[in-house]
């Protein structure tokens, strides 16, 4: 695959110390093309979230290479990784993780401000409007419903125009209808912006909407599913 968005080679990662040490990822190799949507599935404890964190530069592997958008993460300092993440990777969490003391607009503007964008608030307004929350700029997270909070989180993840979007069970804390709406929005915006999506989920229907599904079991890729033709 020429110029992939994500390339992972022979990844190993253990957590804990001494007797409590657990081998979480074992010999993972994987390539994801630009614009591809990949679903990571598997039972609890199989290493899905850890793999997601590793490719977002939030966890350092014991062994192996992670190359994102042509950049190897291995030699990067913590600060360089933070800047890289801020510019190229958008993250959506299961528990939203909005900052409770900031309004919806300020939450979305925060990564742009951190990146030094002069038009942070204008862009944040546009992102919130894109997720259907134009009337909710001044609302604090506690004043929003779960679905609305996850929309703000999605707007925040997409605001810096990242090349890669990672989502960790984004509907896990939402009811079915709201979850469905969020997923529709996620796929729609991803397609519109051409971002690569890596999605962790337990939901087989949701995984089926991805271009490809990767199943993990005990820290290993079980059986790579064939790539579906890109839309």
């Amino acid at each position, binding site marked *: 695959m020429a110029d992939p968005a994500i390339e992972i080679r022979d990844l190993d990662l253990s*957590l*804990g*110390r001494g007797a409590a040490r657990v081998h979480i990822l074992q010999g993972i190799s994987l390539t994801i093309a630009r614009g591809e949507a990949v679903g990571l599935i598997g039972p609890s404890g199989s290493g899905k*979230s*850890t793999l*997601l*964190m590793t490719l*977002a530069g*939030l*966890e350092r592997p014991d062994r192996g290479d992670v190359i994102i958008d042509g950049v190897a993460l291995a030699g990067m300092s*913590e*600060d360089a990784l*933070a*800047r890289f*993440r*801020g*510019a190229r990777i958008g*993250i959506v*969490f299961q*528990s939203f*993780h*909005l*900052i*409770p*003391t*900031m309004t919806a607009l*300020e939450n979305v503007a*925060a*990564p742009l*401000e*951190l*990146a*030094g964008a002069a038009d*942070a608030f204008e862009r944040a307004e546009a992102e919130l409007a894109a997720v259907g929350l134009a009337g909710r700029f001044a609302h604090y997270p506690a004043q929003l419903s779960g679905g609305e909070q996850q929309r703000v989180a999605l707007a*925040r*993840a997409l605001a*810096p125009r990242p090349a890669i979007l990672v989502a*960790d069970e984004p509907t896990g804390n939402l009811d079915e209808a709201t979850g469905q709406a969020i997923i529709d929005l996620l796929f729609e915006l991803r397609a519109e912006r051409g971002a690569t999506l890596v999605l962790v989920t337990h939901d087989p229907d949701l995984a089926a909407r991805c271009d490809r599904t990767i199943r993990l079991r005990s820290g290993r890729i079980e059986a790579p599913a064939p790539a579906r033709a890109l839309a």
Partner: protein
Amino acid sequence: MKPFVPLFRLAFRDLRGGLAGLRIFLACVALGVATIVGVNSLARSLADGLSRDGRAILGGDAAFSLIHRQLSPAERSYLAAHGALSDVATMRAMARNEAGDAALVEIKAVDPSWPAIGRAELTPAMTPQAALAPKDGVFGAAVEDAALDRLKVKIGDTLAIGAIKVQIRAALESEPDRLGSGLGLAPRVLVSLAALDRTGLVQPGSLVRWTTRVVMNPGGEPPSESAVKAFLADAKKAFPEAGWEAVGRGNISPAFSKNLDRFTEFLALIGLTSLIVGGVGVANAAQGFVERKRAILATLKAIGATGGEIVAIALIEFLAVTLIGIAGGLALGAVLPFFVNDLFGAIIPFPLAPGIFPGELALGFAYGLLTAFVFAIAPLGRAHDLPVSALFRDLVEPGRAWPRRRYVALAIAAAAAFAALAIGMSAERRLAIIVVVATVLGFLALRLVALAVMATARRAPRLSGLEWRWALANIHRPGALTPSVVLSLGLGLAVLVALTLIDNVLRGEIGHATPSETPSFYFLDIPSADIGAFRTFLRREAPSANVVEAPMMRGRIIKIGDRPAEGFKAKDNVAWVLQGDRGVTYSDQPPQGSIVVKGEWWPADYAGPPLVSLEEEIADGLGLKIGDAITVNVLGRNITAKIANLRKVNWRSFAMNFVLVYSPNTLKGAPHTFLVTAAFPHDIGSAAELSILRDAARDFPTVASLRVRDALRALAQLLDKLALAIRSASGVALSTSVLVLAGALAANRRSRIYDSVILKTLGATRGRLTAAFLIEYALLGAAASAFGLAAGAAAASLIVTKVMELDFAFAWAPALEAALGALGFTILLGLIGSWRILGQKPAAILREL
């Protein structure tokens, strides 16, 4: 590097969440800053008050004091050419009522122009001239209430002073120049100079202080400060050998100002200690802050903030709160002088000029900010490596125990800046260094104590009592209260124990008496002609007394070697010897209570050039050795003598001692009086003492008798007042400890509630849980108390022996009282907190978990 502005914006947005969990921190900072600013502002108000009222306190723009003699005509006419002169004479004397009861009084004799500046208040209201003028051949007097009480006399009665009787015409309520005339141990009796002249008390060699005040430019505007200084300098140049003590209105009493500086510095150092104790609260608050903000900070990191930016955001938020605390402390401290002036202005004997002092506020601000920085930067620095993975799952790699090196280096640099500021701003560098070093050592020692307590609890054998097992587990488990409680309580208690023990030593010094050595009486101003009769009187009235006598006159040290005493840099502990005049004597043998430690005493018939014996420590403080010369002005004559030997003197016996003892041939021809002390082998009781006092006053009206018992009582009262100020300051230090303790308990509340609810669900009763908490707090309190006791005793011993140069004796009772009080308080505070925890309904909590 990105601009800081977005970081400030993010930080301030987050602060909208309120100050929950930071209130104790706010209080710690505010209290510490308020103490430092309050004490320093009060000292400045006092200094400014003295300077503002300097002219009235001095009674003129400049004053020239002489002992034994009055101004020569040449000196008087020189001073008169520069302004209007007024004269005041002060001396100690005995006053007797009509029944013959006698009391020592301070006579102040004034000329008709008194007071040249300001107003004297008399009751009933009248002018001093009217009160003091002779009526039907009897001079008048205005007498302080204390003397009226002591002698059981009232207005209209007469008092015998020396050879005359004076009629009490008024009670003396206040004198504008009281502070400038010196604070005596005896109550004041105001008479006219003409009356003093008739008393017969003024004889060659008697201890009269003659002061001539000069009001420059009378009737016009007061002269500038520089004009006064120039006049003083010219006067000294014109009469280099006058031997007078010349002061201007801007610097009335250098010795008093220095003592005031020292005292306020001592209080300020206690304030600093309380700020440092509060620092433990700051560190706890910073740690709690990072814990509470964990998710927010991790989220910021997930969306692109670097570790450094995360710490910067946390630091900005924390320092913003610090500024609120500092502002509160500055406001509280700044109003203290106004508060003291309003409430106590009428009863404190010093003028206060309350004001807002930007310098003192800036200092408090700097201390507050540095304290917050020193204690907060390391806990906040841990946020640098806060794992974002915590947002994905609960299991994360444990964070590093230490923050990154750069934050540790910043904390050390800030601590060094704090220490440098404390030492640099201190006039008592040595004391400041001791406090700084002791604090650092105290911190390290307390950290070790906490680790030792936790290790001991961890290794303790498995106990059968469940409550004991729970208590021990609580002491050593991660996140235990142990380090906070031991550190805050241990440090606060160490300060309290140290101050208690120092106070105890000082009181012991005052009450210190050695039978046969510590005199019961000092008899002053015995004329040479009466000394024989006085010896006979004492043999008859006090046959068992050990009587010591010495000829005495007063002298001022003028030169040390060939360097003028003025501006001479003596060691701090002996600087007093150059301030004002000292008693000097002569003797053909070493005085009682002195031991010659270097050199030889002169032969009894020595007739060579003048020789002098100097006290060993003073010689050292002045940099003098045997063979060096020292020049002293006695009776208007400069006498240069060679140091023949050095003596060790036991000052603490209160027995008669002199700094300077001359060879007899040096001073024998000079007019002088005698000083006699009488010490009894055992306490003869107050009634017998009063009887001797009364008879001495009757038979020798010009002799002033000072009862040591009275003097010590006056000294103890003074110490009580000082102790009150010290206790207030140390009370602040202890309050800070309690705040820190309360903060630590509050921070721990969440996990306590969780534990209690789970244990209750499993069948634990409130009684068993209370017992476990009681054991835990008692063990922690005991460890902190033991440390506080040991460290406080060590600090007190160091200060008493090295700074005060006194003997240290450990007093169990007050130290244990403080330690047990602290222990009880810890248990009480812990139990109050626990009671609320135990009152929680498990179901409600379990639903939230």
